[in-house]
């Protein structure tokens, strides 16, 4: 594990200080770190543990329990494809296969140029407009393979 740089350590300490007084603050702290840094670096774990008077194991345990928290830096854009039943009924598996082929990566991977991370997600609550995807926080419905290609082209050109 690489320790955080002094600058990043200061950022993490400041985030923890902001949330420290609230009841049960750990998830809030981790959300704030990920929002700021894009992921929760392993080096942040001892800093958070120290500030919140928790063990490193407790903090590591929480980071790794939740699918949403990432321990590695993601690509510039994150494409999450819904793989749950409603989307499956409208071709989510074929869409995922297309996405893998098009990007040359599997789920939980990032393209070699660092542009796009591909993730599975289990329900976006858009089940009457399946299949659904979330791209950099933006929701898409009735997504076709052609629509997917257009999204990727838009994302990487912006």
């Amino acid at each position, binding site marked *: 594990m690489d320790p955080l740089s002094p600058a990043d350590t200061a950022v993490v300490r400041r985030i923890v200080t902001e949330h420290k007084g609230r009841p049960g603050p750990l998830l809030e702290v981790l959300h704030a770190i990920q929002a700021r840094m894009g992921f929760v670096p392993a080096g942040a774990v001892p800093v958070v543990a120290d500030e919140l008077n928790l063990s490193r194991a407790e903090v590591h345990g929480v980071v790794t*329990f939740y699918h949403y928290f990432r321990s590695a830096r993601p690509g510039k854009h994150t494409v999450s494809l819904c793989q*749950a039943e409603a989307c499956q009924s409208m071709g989510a598996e074929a869409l995922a296969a297309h996405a893998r082929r098009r990007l040359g990566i599997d789920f939980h991977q990032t393209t070699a140029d660092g542009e796009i991370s591909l993730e599975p997600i289990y329900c976006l609550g858009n089940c009457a407009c*399946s299949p659904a995807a979330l791209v950099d926080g933006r929701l898409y419905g009735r997504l076709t393979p052609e629509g997917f290609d257009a999204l990727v082209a838009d994302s990487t050109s912006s």
Partner: protein
Amino acid sequence: MSATLYVPIDAGALSIGAGEVAAAITAEAARRHAPLTLVRNGSRGAYWLEPMVEVATPEGRVAYGPVAPRDVPSLFAADFLAGGAHPLSLGPTDSIPWLKGQQRLTFERVGIVDPASASDYVKHGGYQGLERALALAPGEVVQAVTASGLRGRGGAAFPTGIKWKTVLEQTAVQKYVTCNADEGDSGTFADRMLMEGDPFTLIEGMTIAAVAVGASAGFIYLRAEYPHALAALRTAIAAAYSAGYLGADVAGSGKRFDLEVRVGAGAYICGEETSMLESLEGRRGEVRVRPPLPAIKGLFGQPTIVNNVVTLASIPWILAHGAEAYANFGMGKSRGTLPIQLAGNIRRGGLVERAFGLTLRELLYDYGGGTATGKPIRAVQVGGPLGAYIPPSQFDTAVDYEALAGIGALLGHGGVVVFDDTVDMARMARYAMEFCAIESCGKCTPCRIGSTRGVEVIDRIIAGVDAEHNVQLLEELCELMVQGSLCGLGGMAPFPVQSALKHFREDFRARH
């Protein structure tokens, strides 16, 4: 005179272009120097008509849809701001047959009000329930909820009034009201629609709960997959504080109620109430062993109400109109209405709020219009990823807790996912086990190990390895998980598998 237009800000509508339509309307209006007020409302729930644009006319709202940005100039040319005729015209919104037959109580304001405005909420009957609750003794509020027959809409269907009574009877310095907004079931979006389209109803429902049991703090535990709902809730909570409906002196009653949203982190298990409480406390979302019940020892060890979004959002209507009025809807032990979500491979999908008792057939064909692909329906899954698959021979079953339990199914949170005849039910059974393996919290062995073994056994069946023996093994494994798991995840994940084995046995064979 300035026209008033409504274009939904609902995430589902946005996902198919409502944002672009709103932008196109604003641009075209500016080009034509046509003054207009654009309200970003929730969705009416008719997703096959989204993006649906509504125009206020003296005779009520008139709808157009589904609108694409390229339709906007012709809509202006047809004078749609005055309700003019156009190929996309749907007529008065309230006369659209799909909407007209619904019985909207909990969703009465969704798609009608401006979700960001406390004053618009009040103008449409909001906060009458709280006013009524504040005039009653706490025990009387709880009694009204009990008398309404309301049962937990998250899926467990436990009588809400009884839960509240337990919390009311506890003596504690601090009690909590928590809202389970971790709507993770595939095929469900009622919570999301309500939080985005009428968040004040949820806030009011939680405030009434707090008044009823003597709680001064509340949390909404919202899933991370719902960024639009998060924004809507934060805006509405801030507005409720400004208007004096939250904080130290709720509506001038002298009672304190503080409310905040906490965001989950992509763990399906956190929809289980004790796991949700662990997560709210900042820990791994591992299930707690019950007893003690959360109503006695819940959040931070204090007496806590845990209710689903739709449950809490039904409370204001019950208080405002009376328990009896609510209980007059429904059948048997399922009283009131249920917002049903029609999802997946369906032609006219969306939200249908009706009294309990509608049959699946009416829902799938009268409302849904059959599949989107035009092929016959082969199966529907009711109640999310832990719900049973139901074959067409059982489509005359009523949507009712007991009726569905009677055929070995469950209603859950009211999601209905439709599959056409291309579905491979052995693969759907495999997915149920795979999902359980991904989402298991790991605390108990039947769920943690059983789900992984379940995937392996189904893989062997599909590969044609000793199929007869492995099907029997799968049945035994399902039984073990049902009997031996600590909570509903491992205990119910076998339901889709068992129902697939029962009704679609022919799919459990080798693939070539």
